[in-house]
């Protein structure tokens, strides 16, 4: 089905198409739009925070509202912006990179998206229903259990629902990458982005259930009177810290690893060289993933776990610097001896290297437990994790969007606007966060609504706020770029960058079924190999035949809607037990959908050989 046909069907049909789609490429669009919107919301929250901190003793926003802002900024950026945007890229690219026609579980893929979206909506409903969550994105108990109103309830239910979506998405990608690779696509021939997607999915699988349990305990404490974190009932607040960080630390790697994958692909493509030390890169990726589960307590050095535990976790944390260092040097040596093209995508990758090196080195500094007693919960930490998450993940997402935009939408993003975005955002980013290292050491704890005059914190905060505005300008220019490109830019071929991997061997945007004939992979960078041997495209692994594709379904949407309704029931039954009817209604909808899905056969449909041939002739 070409896009022209879809456009003729009218707006209603267009919406229905996206509500029911199980096509990973369209799900990527959904993730991109939703994640992008949440990114703008989170960015707006960040701006309000920085305006509040532009001068001492400011009262631009009230203390209570400020706490809601900082909580929602963190929660939104991590769960509702970074994660879905990564899923957008993974959905758009991974099946294409492994030569698959679809993901392993198209239905679940769609369910994952709708769960995330409805969870995100619940989280943000707090703004309009008496106050957003205000206990920090880490929601440490007992502050989170005693926080009045329903704010934290929105946090609990929202994250629970969107977390379920993420877990489903993770399993989907695991099975897709393991089971759906094209003939010849061995593990050690997979592009690094696919590798990082695989490791990230594994981390999601093993990290998110810990958050699920933590959220359940918090929910029971808040809504049903249990006493997990209530000291007067014998509860223990440290349990939440453990559960949260057993999830929370791997979460950081869940975010950063795909960005590493993006940079590996981008640097290799635009220096026209094979990735240097591919095997070491794969090894380093898995090692980082593995170590990511061993270090959660470095977030708790000030909790009082004792010097032995602190030392062990300090050393384990430092160990992560080794594989990360290997990666940095491999990237540098991928560039070494290459012929480097610098465009928007490449700028983000090149900007990433120094930025992330700063973030990584401060990471090692933070790992030194006794020194962390000074850094902990100050702006030093704020600076560090923004260097890693903005300088790593957000730069990675920008690089990915510039790089794969033509693959997703058939058009190259405007280069001038792309460069303006990079330079404003890059400069603003360093202005905002570099100085915060010093603010922290000079005695400014994080999550401070205001700071006092006369403590030498004024200049740093002012500079930081100015930087934040530059970043905002960069982000706005990017949005303008997207609109401008979709209106003005010409269509491009399937391979605008002289690419190396399978996704560049098919048209842009790819047809519904991706590959007319499953490709035969003959090595790392399969398209490059074919190009070097003088062929135009990839050798097919099979003759042209009927293609089996899954059917669209509205069930994922309704199922998620059911949980959305049930979520409100859970939240409000504390005030009035009759809200339990909402729980029953919502759960009934969801379970009913599950039953329908289970008993109703869905065998998919076929695209016939004749139609494929006809389409080929048209192109």
């Amino acid at each position, binding site marked *: 089905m070409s896009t022209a046909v879809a456009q003729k069907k009218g707006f209603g049909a267009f919406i229905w198409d996206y509500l029911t789609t199980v096509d990973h490429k369209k799900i990527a669009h959904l993730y991109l739009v939703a994640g992008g919107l949440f990114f703008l919301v989170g960015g707006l929250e960040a701006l309000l925070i920085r305006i509040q901190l532009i001068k001492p003793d400011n009262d631009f926003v*009230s*203390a*209570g509202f400020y*706490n809601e802002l900082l909580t929602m900024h963190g929660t939104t950026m991590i769960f509702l912006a970074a994660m879905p945007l990564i899923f957008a890229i993974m959905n758009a690219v991974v099946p294409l990179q492994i030569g698959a026609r679809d993901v392993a579980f198209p239905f679940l893929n769609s369910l994952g998206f709708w769960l995330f979206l409805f969870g995100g909506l619940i989280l943000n409903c707090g703004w309009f229903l008496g106050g957003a969550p205000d*206990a920090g994105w880490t929601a*440490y108990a007992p*502050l989170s259990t*005693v926080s009045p109103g329903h704010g934290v309830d929105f946090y609990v239910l929202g994250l629970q629902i969107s977390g379920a979506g993420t877990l489903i998405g993770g399993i989907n990608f695991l099975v897709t990458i393991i089971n759906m690779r094209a003939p010849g696509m061995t593990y050690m021939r997979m592009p690094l982005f696919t590798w990082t997607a695989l490791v990230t999915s594994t981390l999601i699988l093993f990290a998110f259930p810990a958050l699920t349990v933590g959220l359940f305990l918090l929910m029971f404490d808040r809504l049903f009177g249990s006493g997990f974190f209530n*000291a007067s009932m014998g509860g223990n*607040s*440290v349990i939440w810290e453990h559960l949260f960080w057993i999830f929370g630390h791997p979460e950081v790697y869940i975010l950063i690893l795909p960005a590493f994958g993006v940079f590996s692909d981008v640097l290799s493509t635009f*220096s026209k*060289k094979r990735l*240097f*030390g*591919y095997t070491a890169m794969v090894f380093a990726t898995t090692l980082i993933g593995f170590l990511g589960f061993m270090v959660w307590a470095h977030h708790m050095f*000030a*909790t*009082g776990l004792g*010097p032995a535990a602190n*030392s062990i976790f300090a050393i384990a944390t*430092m*160990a992560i610097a*080794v594989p990360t*260092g*290997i990666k940095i040097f*491999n990237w*540098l*040596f991928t*560039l*070494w*001896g290459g*012929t480097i093209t*610098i465009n928007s995508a490449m*700028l983000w990758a090149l900007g990433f290297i120094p930025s992330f*090196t700063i973030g990584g*080195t*401060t990471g*090692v*500094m933070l790992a*030194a437990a*006794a020194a962390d*007693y*000074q850094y*902990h919960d100050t702006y030093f930490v704020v600076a560090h994790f923004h260097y890693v998450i903005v300088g790593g993940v957000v730069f990675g997402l920008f690089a990915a969007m510039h790089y794969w935009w033509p693959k997703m939408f058939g058009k190259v993003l405007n280069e001038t606007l792309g460069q303006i975005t990079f*330079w404003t955002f890059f*400069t603003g980013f360093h*202005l905002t966060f*570099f*100085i915060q290292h010093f603010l922290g*050491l*000079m*005695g400014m*704890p994080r999550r401070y*609504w205001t700071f*006092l005059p*006369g*403590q030498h*914190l004024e200049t*740093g905060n002012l500079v930081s706020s100015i930087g934040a505005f530059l970043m905002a300008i960069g982000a706005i220019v990017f949005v303008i770029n997207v609109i401008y490109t979709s209106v003005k830019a010409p269509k491009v071929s399937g391979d605008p960058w002289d690419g190396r991997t399978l996704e560049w061997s098919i048209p842009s945007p790819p047809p519904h079924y991706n590959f007319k004939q499953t490709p035969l992979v003959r090595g790392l960078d399969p398209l490059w190999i074919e190009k070097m041997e003088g062929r135009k495209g990839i050798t097919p692994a099979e003759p042209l035949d009927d293609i089996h594709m899954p059917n669209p379904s509205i069930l994922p949407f309704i199922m998620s809607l059911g949980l959305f309704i049930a979520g409100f029931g859970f939240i409000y039954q504390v005030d009035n037990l009759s809200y339990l009817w909402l729980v029953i209604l919502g759960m009934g909808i969801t379970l009913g959908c599950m039953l329908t899905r289970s008993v109703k056969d869905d065998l998919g449909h076929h695209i016939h050989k004749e139609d494929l041939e006809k389409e080929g002739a048209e192109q």
Partner: protein
Amino acid sequence: MKGWMGKFRALGIFGFLMLVLSGCGKENLSALTPKGYGSKAALNLINISLGVMIFVFIVVMVIYAIVIVRFRKKKGREDYIPPQTEGNKALEVIWTVIPIILLVIIAIPTVAITFDLADESAADESLNVNVTGNQFWWHFNYEGEEIQTSQDLYIPTGEKVYLNMKTSDVLHSFWVPALSGKMDLHPENENTMYIQADEEGVYDGKCAEFCGTSHSLMDFKVIAVSPEEFDQWVEDMQNVDPEAQPETADAQEGQQLFQDNSCIGCHAIGASPAATGPNLTNFGDRTTLAGVKEHTKDNIVDWIMDPESMKPGNKMADANYDVSREEAEKIADYLLQLQPSDITPESAETNE
């Protein structure tokens, strides 16, 4: 390419920033001007790790600069296809082994200092203070001394003072950057740390664990005085007569009002362990009101009339009392003359 100019400009701005920042923050607040055992140890460790890390950063940036300058696509060589290097064993071993060595250099002092700062062997023969964190103030109970204070913690210089810390509500974190790193307060378990001030002074302390609306207004002071002065202070505090008659008539009326409005129900004066609100025994000697405001009569009156406006979310906003502004002024008079000791924050600042 204009990108280059931007990069240099960015570097220039950083250089300027570094200059501005070469001041290390406010004395007695900043962790970069350490005055105590823990903060000096931490700064040593910070410097070691920072040194190693700057070395790493320079190495990366040198290679980075070479790469970007030398290997850009060149005019006339657009079709050049570079050799597809797979890797280089020797190089890869080097950049695995050297970082490990560098990390060991950091790890050894890390472990040593971490254990040193957790050393509790001297706790029994040292001064012990039980610290309670509250939304949004601090309470200090000198173990075995029959002294209770809030907000201002007096300690002697040159010796370890052990803090046994617990919270009465949500988590807090005790942080006096110029003296020592921080430690969290939990409701179910006591956490112990020690602080030691090497010089006399009034040190700024802050709550470093997010604790609600007025988290940012939960400042306190550690007042380090010479051991002799500290002994004097202990003696004065132990001899406080909570019911002593103030000298002026206004203050006497204030004392009466303080009792009539059950202020005393939450705010103890003297060594009573009740601490629903801050202990006011030496309120007249405080350096700040509520940790963050100037300690003036006007501010105290404003506070009594509307505590919520000065520290949102504090419990006094819900307290049941009804005083007029004139009455509040008399209460303030009474409170300001609660100065049981000659050892005050000034003793810490003037003495050498």
